[in-house]
């Protein structure tokens, strides 16, 4: 292709009107709580921008993150993000395979060295030399290190690449770790969730393409615009929590009345995500609205924090055997002390 790959031109080729594009930018700006004027600036900047080269590596994952972004109702605004990027490598979506696919990746890495955005979904196995997941004979670890060298920034999509996720769960047979456990010298943004909300993925990508940098991040490197509040803070059932009205089982009067699911193990109070505001499936609902507590899927180690149905204040372990043993031990020691004391008393009175 001779003409530079300008976004405006490629949109026209795909038959996407500029009005649709402006609408996308307005929706994204509103989603990220940017001022409305930012939408025009965004549309203007993006139109002139070169299509962002994106290399998407999939490691130990279930493809749910890609499904979340691509298989929502069609056509969606979120999918417009694919018009704005030049997706140079994505195993699930690309037509090429085998040697052709790998050489496309290498070519893209060379052509946009230092400029491409690296997206990673899935965790990276490290045990036994990383043999548990390889692509074309190269371990995920080596592939990541190689691809990270020329990346302008890395976006870890999904809980697996952000925090290790389900492959990392106890006993972690493959020694799975997150991207940030391996790469230390690049800006990394985590977009956790199992899977993440599609518009959150699209929003942060649009932000990066517009401003050329990652948005503001929190202590776990999550974009603050989407991960600033807990599910509990924004939950429509929050007033019931405040009133102390709880569903005790999934089919009692409280559950039918839509009361708070805290006692049924909802992890909303310790989970930072935007489900309660953006919701799922094109805004239909989110888990709590459908009557099930939050699993906390966007938090580190969510799989190992006890049962999904164990309420937050309940101890994680079953302490009954330990308490029983300790109590029996206490009785034994106390009795022994009393016996010694009695003997001592007797010997004193005998001396008299």
């Amino acid at each position, binding site marked *: 292709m001779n003409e530079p790959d300008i976004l405006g031109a490629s949109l026209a080729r795909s038959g996407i009107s500029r009005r649709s594009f402006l609408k*996308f930018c307005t929706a994204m700006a509103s*989603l990220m709580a940017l001022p409305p004027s930012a939408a025009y600036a965004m549309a203007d900047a993006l139109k002139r921008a070169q299509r962002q080269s994106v290399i998407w590596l999939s490691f130990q994952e279930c493809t749910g993150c890609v499904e979340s972004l691509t298989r929502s109702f069609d056509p969606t605004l979120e999918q417009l993000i694919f018009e704005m990027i030049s997706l140079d490598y994505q195993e699930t979506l690309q037509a090429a395979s085998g040697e052709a696919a790998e050489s496309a990746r290498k070519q893209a890495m060379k052509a946009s060295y230092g400029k491409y955005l690296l997206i990673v979904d899935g965790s990276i196995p490290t045990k036994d030399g990383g043999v548990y997941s390889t692509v074309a004979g190269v371990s995920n670890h080596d592939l990541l290190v190689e691809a990270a060298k020329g990346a302008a920034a890395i976006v870890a999509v999904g809980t697996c690449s952000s925090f290790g996720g389900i492959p990392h769960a106890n006993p972690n047979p493959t020694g799975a770790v997150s991207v940030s456990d391996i790469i230390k010298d690049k800006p990394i943004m985590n977009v956790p969730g199992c899977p993440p909300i599609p518009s959150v993925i699209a929003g942060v990508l649009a932000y990066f393409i517009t401003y050329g940098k990652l948005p503001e991040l929190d202590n776990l490197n999550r974009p603050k615009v989407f991960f600033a509040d807990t599910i509990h803070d924004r939950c429509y059932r929050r007033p019931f929590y405040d009133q102390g009205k709880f569903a005790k089982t999934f089919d009692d009067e409280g559950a*039918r009345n839509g009361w708070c699911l805290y006692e049924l193990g909802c992890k909303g109070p310790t989970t930072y995500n935007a489900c309660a505001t953006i919701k799922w499936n094109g805004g239909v609902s989110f888990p709590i609205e459908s009557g099930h507590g939050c699993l906390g899927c966007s938090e580190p180690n969510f799989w190992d924090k006890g049962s999904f149905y164990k309420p937050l204040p309940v101890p994680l372990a079953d302490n009954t055997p330990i308490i029983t043993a300790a109590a029996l031990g206490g009785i034994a020691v106390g009795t022994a002390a009393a016996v010694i004391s009695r003997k001592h008393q007797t010997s004193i009175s005998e001396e008299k």
Partner: protein
Amino acid sequence: MSGLDNIGTKVVNPLPSPPEDGLSGNADAILHEIVALLEAYTATGQTGAIDLHSLPLTLDDYELLRITLADGEVHAHIDAIGNSEVRETLYPGVWWVTYYNAEGDIVADLIEVTAVPEILKAPADDVREGLAHLRELLKQEQP
């Protein structure tokens, strides 16, 4: 009648009882901001916009905005990945722009203060491309 109908359900409003008139005060704040934006626009030509999603609005707040701003002379409908409604309010230069996605959910809800909202204008690039297409068409028709 399916068996599901026998399951009793109840919908309870979880929100604490709102103040008598159901207004949060934010609608009033928005109306004052519109005045400020109009003043700026008439004085300097500076356009402005308010994202209605950025403020928590009750249903009564929306109702107050609708009644106060009311419908003006222009009502446009844009069909581009879902609907978009552009209405001029009773106050010329104040536009209520609502974007829907393909499922009909609101994805952005804005008040714009300008002569014509950007989304209504035909973008120059699109005009040029349209021209090219039309020329192409005429060329093909000529023998």
